[in-house]
């Protein structure tokens, strides 16, 4: 009987082999055992990473590393993790921050950085990865890849760093307080609760008290120092130095009231002490230029301390003596970039031109408004900030295509104001022409106008501006 059964069994096997023979089995099998594993499994099975594995389980990151996304893990080995303080170990939130600091999305091998990569970790902070180092930890075992990423082992604790603002805010320097005074309340319509529409303007009406967020004038201007995605070089002045700078600037930033003057002086001092991009100490130049074009001299001997943060470097300096002339600079405005006109129906008479200066051989752009037939037609330019300092106004008005000269007038805030006299615009004059003087009553923005002659006659009521410039008259 057994023989018979064996034969039947054999037959069944042959048939099954024939029918079930899977031509794909060979082709699709994983050709590397590692590719059948996940990072979670790999870490679990690596004895020297058992402590890290415990932390993964404790923080729930083990589930993440089982997932179908690519990760890179820099795992501190057991010996290294012994140095982890009990405070972090026992604080779930801090522990999560700590563990998350070792995991990033996507796979990075040690041959990827060239020379250094800055990668965002799962806790939102950035780390630096070079071919041999993870932040300041050495990589002892590299490039163990599995199906969903790669594992490196490191030999030093890498704790999450503070960012620039977290650090600055943790100090006792006055500069921190000055930045905090720049906070203001605003409404974020996305967060506010809409309760209706204004029947007249059709604008949404929000429920009072909703959607109010705190913003900061400094961050509005130079970027949010809490943003981990942006690196900064930040100069934190000592109290004396920051006050000296504020005092120096205060007369020129007179606001509507004293509070405003205080705030403006803080803002205008500090805004130039931050630049985007991270300069290491050795790379720090003799002066840096802020986003507003202000040159800040860097005296390396004045650097008291250097702090590396997760999004940049903070230099604590005893002095950053910005020259007033660097701070309060001429305000130049190109004629061909107006903010508006007195009428909106004359676009056919407005030419934005690219011309050649036959004397210098240079090309220039200007605005030329002609044959508009409107007496006192004007073109408008909004000037954002004028310091409270006397300015001299000049313009260049080439008048290079007409056969007759004309007159035009400069005005500030009121186009009908005759504070500036009508100025001749002679033929083919490519030089800067003095237009008049202007002294702002206080710090702030103004509107400048270039106004045509008070007639409707073609050619004699043209407007032509290459640029105009307000040059501060500093003592």
């Amino acid at each position, binding site marked *: 009987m057994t023989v018979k059964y064996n034969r039947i069994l054999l037959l069944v096997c042959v048939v099954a082999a*024939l029918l079930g023979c*899977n*031509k794909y089995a060979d082709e699709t099998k994983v050709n590397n055992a590692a590719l059948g594993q996940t990072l979670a499994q790999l870490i679990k099975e690596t004895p020297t990473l058992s402590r890290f594995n415990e932390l993964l389980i404790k923080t729930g990151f083990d589930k993440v590393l089982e997932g179908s*996304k690519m990760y890179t893990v820099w795992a501190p080995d057991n010996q290294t993790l012994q140095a982890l303080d009990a405070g972090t170990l026992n604080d779930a939130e801090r522990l999560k921050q700590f563990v998350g600091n070792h995991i990033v999305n996507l796979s990075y091998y040690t*041959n990827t950085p060239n020379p250094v990569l800055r*990668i965002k970790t799962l806790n939102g902070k950035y780390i630096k990865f070079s071919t041999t180092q993870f932040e300041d930890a050495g990589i002892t075992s590299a490039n163990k890849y599995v199906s969903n990423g790669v594992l490196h082992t490191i030999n030093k604790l890498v704790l999450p760093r503070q960012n620039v603002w977290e650090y600055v805010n943790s100090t006792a320097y006055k500069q921190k307080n000055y930045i905090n005074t720049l906070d203001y309340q605003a409404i974020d319509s996305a967060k506010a609760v809409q309760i209706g529409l204004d029947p007249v303007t059709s604008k949404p009406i929000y429920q009072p008290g909703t959607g109010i967020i705190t913003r900061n004038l400094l961050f509005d201007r130079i970027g949010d120092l809490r943003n981990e995605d942006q690196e900064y070089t930040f100069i934190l002045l000592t109290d004396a130095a920051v006050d000296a700078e504020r005092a120096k600037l205060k007369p020129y930033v007179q606001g509507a009231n004293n509070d405003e003057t205080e705030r403006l002086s803080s803002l205008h001092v500090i805004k130039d002490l931050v630049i985007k991009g991270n300069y290491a100490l050795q790379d720090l130049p003799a002066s840096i230029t802020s986003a507003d074009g202000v040159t800040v001299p860097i005296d390396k001997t004045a650097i008291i301390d250097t702090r590396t943060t997760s999004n940049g470097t903070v230099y604590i300096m005893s002095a950053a003596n910005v020259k007033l002339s660097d701070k309060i600079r001429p305000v130049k405005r190109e004629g061909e970039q107006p903010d508006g006109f007195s009428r909106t129906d004359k676009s056919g008479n407005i030419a934005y031109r690219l011309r050649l200066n036959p004397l210098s051989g240079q090309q220039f752009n200007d605005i030329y408004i002609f044959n508009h037939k409107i007496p006192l037609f004007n073109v408008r330019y909004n000037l954002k900030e004028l310091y409270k300092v006397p300015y001299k106004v000049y313009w260049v008005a080439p008048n290079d295509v007409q056969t007759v000269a004309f007159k035009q007038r400069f005005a500030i805030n009121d186009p009908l104001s005759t504070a500036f006299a009508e100025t001749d615009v002679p033929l083919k004059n490519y030089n800067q022409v003095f237009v008049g003087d202007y002294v702002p009553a206080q710090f702030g923005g103004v509107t400048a106008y270039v106004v045509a002659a008070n007639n409707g006659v073609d050619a004699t009521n043209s407007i032509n501006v290459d640029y105009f410039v307000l040059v501060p008259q500093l003592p």
Partner: protein
Amino acid sequence: MRISTPIHVLAICGSICFCTAANAQQKDSTRVAATSANKIKNGYEVTGQVTDAATKKPVPGINVVVQDIAAAITDDKGNFKIIVPSKTSVLQFSGQGFQYKDVAVNGRKVINASLYEDGFTSAYDLVTLPFRQAPKSQISYAVSSVNTDGSWTRNKETPDNFLQGQVAGLNVIRRSGTPGVGAEVFLRGFNSLNATNQPLYVIDGMIYDANSYGRSIINGHVTNPLSNIDIKDIDNITVIKDGASYYGSRGANGVILINTAHAKELTTRIDFAAYGGMNFTPKQIPLLNTTDYRLYLTDVLRSAGQTDAQIQAQPYMNDDPANPTYYQYHNNTNWQKKVFTNSHSQNYYLKVTGGDNIAKYALSVGYLNNDGLTDSTNLKRYSTRFNADLNLTPKLTANTNLSFSSSEQILKDQGLTTANPALIGLIKAPFLSVNQISETGVQSPNLADVDIFNVSNPVALIRNAQQTNKYYRFFGSVKFNFQFNKHHSVSSLTGLVYDKVRENTFIPRMGVVPDTLRNAIAYSRLGASIQRYNSFYNDTWYSYKRTFTGEHDILFNAGFRYHDSESEQDYAQGYNSPTDDFVSIGNGVTNLRRLTGDYGKWKWLNAYAALNYSFRSKYFLSANLSADGSSRFGRDIPGALSIAGNKYAVLPSVAASWLISSEKFLASAKFIDLLKLRASYGLTGNDDIGNYNTRSYYRAQNLLGSQGLVLANIANPQLQWELNKKANVGLDVALFNERLNLSIDAYHNVTSKMVTLDPLNTAAGMQYVVANSGGMRTNGIDLSLNSRIINNAVKLDVGLNVSTYSNRITALPADNLITNYAGATMITRIGQSTAMFYGYKTNGIYTSNNEAAQVGLSIRGTDGSLVPFKGGDVRFIDVNNDKVIDDNDRQSIGNPNPDFVGSFNGKVSYKSMSLTALFTFSSGNDLYNGQRAILQSLSSPANQFANVVNRWRFDGQITDVPRAAYGDPMGNARFSDRFIESGSYVRLRTIAVNYNLPIKPKLLKYATIYLNADNLFTVTKYLGYDPEFSAGRSPLVQGIDTALEPQFRSAQLGIRIGL
């Protein structure tokens, strides 16, 4: 049009001849029925016994005949006695339920014959040829005959599919798994590059044009005229493989004669059959699962230059269930399952035969309903046939063969297009779902739209795309035969074909990626097409048949055929109907509508003469001659026969055979039943040279909105038929009382004057002119072997058909011809086979950047700079050692021609039960897996083949799958041997069991149950769904997998009852 005049004249002449003959018939009428038995002087007496080969028992009632001279019947002990005219006479044995057999007397006094049952594959099987029916042993040409035996177990097959594996030398490649779509049939390899390679089909004596004129507007579909023939209506099929010149300039690819069944007896017989079956989905192609797919996606997006933040911002990377798109992107859908479904088939068939002395009829109706593999595709076919045989007067007989068949098929796009649901089902991201899903995970009944990767929803195509093909064909002929006397007769067959295909398509906008037109985006696509083909056919011939002194047999036929055909296709394409509810062509945007068409009209006249002569039924000689005129031929063909300015193709052939076993010196070799040597040489032609290439014509051209005519070609008045010379040598052997039958043929086919597209100088204003500048030859061997292994109550027959050919190009207008099709590149070069795959050879993957740098190969960027290969790129072989991989590094990487094709078959029968099996195989052919080229391109978010988990990711990783690289900048997925695979396979093509139920004869005559299965298993290493497919009929596109519907397994149960 001038060419038609003389053809008309000849046609009229023929009709006149026929009329004259009809008048002449009145005079001598009575001698026809007279037999001349028992009048032999100096006769020679032969006695013997006839036994059943299986049971060894004597068989009574067997007719023993010497053709036209003597006859006898075996008595109840199986004995017979007959006086034969000479010692060289041949005895013919036949009887109900038994095989037909010839035995040469060969000087013997006693001849014992043992006969096998009817249906036994024998060397004496009757073969139907154009003018006669003769035992295969008496035919000098290389022919194969297939007795369909009712085809009750293969009821769903089309005739072309049915022929697969039945005939040595006939390579039948089924086009796809779509029901009714048929097969590419190549007889003895290829004979032409640009003209047809399809054999000529002649059904019931009339040419059956099996070309489909025009193209289907449903991508990947081919309207198959042969699907109109219900396989159960066919009685027998004869394949003429060598240059018999029966059909002159249309016979270059061989001739397949199909004869439909006529009533065999007068009693009324009613056959009814009903079948029901299941079609099964094929084994799925393994793809990446959702986990591996998302990991792959990360890699490919990263290679596209996306940053970590951009990748993490993709909605499908967000694993937070609170995210509004979480449920939309966290599914696990097996798209292949959504596209291919198991489905059903049904088939009913009724046939009534009977009649009386004056009229016999065979009437059949059939209904087939076969669902396709792709969900909601289906074929419904209704077919009717009326075959009648009428004895109008004792001398005048008539036969009619009238068939009408109509089908309606619901289809989906196939092939490498964005509207092929099967292809989309492979590349669609598995984490998406069929339906829309709300933020909270609630599934809507509405289908999901085009996805984030710009891939259609295959289910939207399946449910909402409408693609139908309605097809009917009337094919009918009436044949009159007037028998003047025993020797002379005149016949005339006149037939008509009326054929119409109507197609309507609608691709919806919802869920389907829009197409880009030259001046618009096509959101929804609408189409309508009408193809018409009609023809008139007449074949009129005179026949002379005589036996002299019992030793010389002469059959002479002469006549002519006239075939007048017309085809037309008109189709319209429209775009952007207002909503998906407007599906007909008129709803498209007016200024995007396109109307196009095609028209052809051609005439063919063939005058022929055929002589068959045999001496002592031992030496056979056949000679044929045909002279063909065609409206397609040029008027200035050098050296051609010219009549009234028209050129004629004069094509003779000759064949001789020697029945060695009838010679005296073999009379004593009892184990030899038959030994026959055959040789033939013939000229045939191929008239598929285009209807109007010999004349210059204009076509419509739109230029900036105004319509005009432009010259479309350069006329070539010297353009002629392709000439195909065929030489064949064959040997037929039957041994051990026919227990072993062997037939072997060697052939040498030479095509000259092959039609080519000769490139022209730019100044000509045309790219090419059609000319006869090519040449090709094909050599090969066909072998068929049949054997009865067990011969008692249990009978076991096995058979083998195998054929091999080698094809060489001998002349081309240029050194080589490079053609591209569906991503593949083929080279046709003098001295090589047609259409060798021409691409890059590879040697693995660079394991590291260092290794790649050491090898130092680059590609040329679009700006001309050199871009070096890196780790993870494919290591292409630099043929010319210039360190740059470019077109010059291509080489032959595969041959789509098989080394061997053929079949095994087996049949076991025991009492009322029998089991038949047919295995088909193909060996040594290479295939280009175009589908896998997409699934292993690693260059887009398309889902990939499962082994893409092994892709190269890390310096030093040893693997065989390249890195993921968006857009494939290094061309890793270019046409290379990575995607060339062996197409060898062995398939259990069909297996069938039938069982005759024991029934009371009063109620029913008989009842039989059939259980059969197709494609039950296929042994292959090919990584696509199936290694058998054909993207087109040209030899230049064979072996290219363009994602057509694969072959699938099916099984069915049927019952047939006889009343």
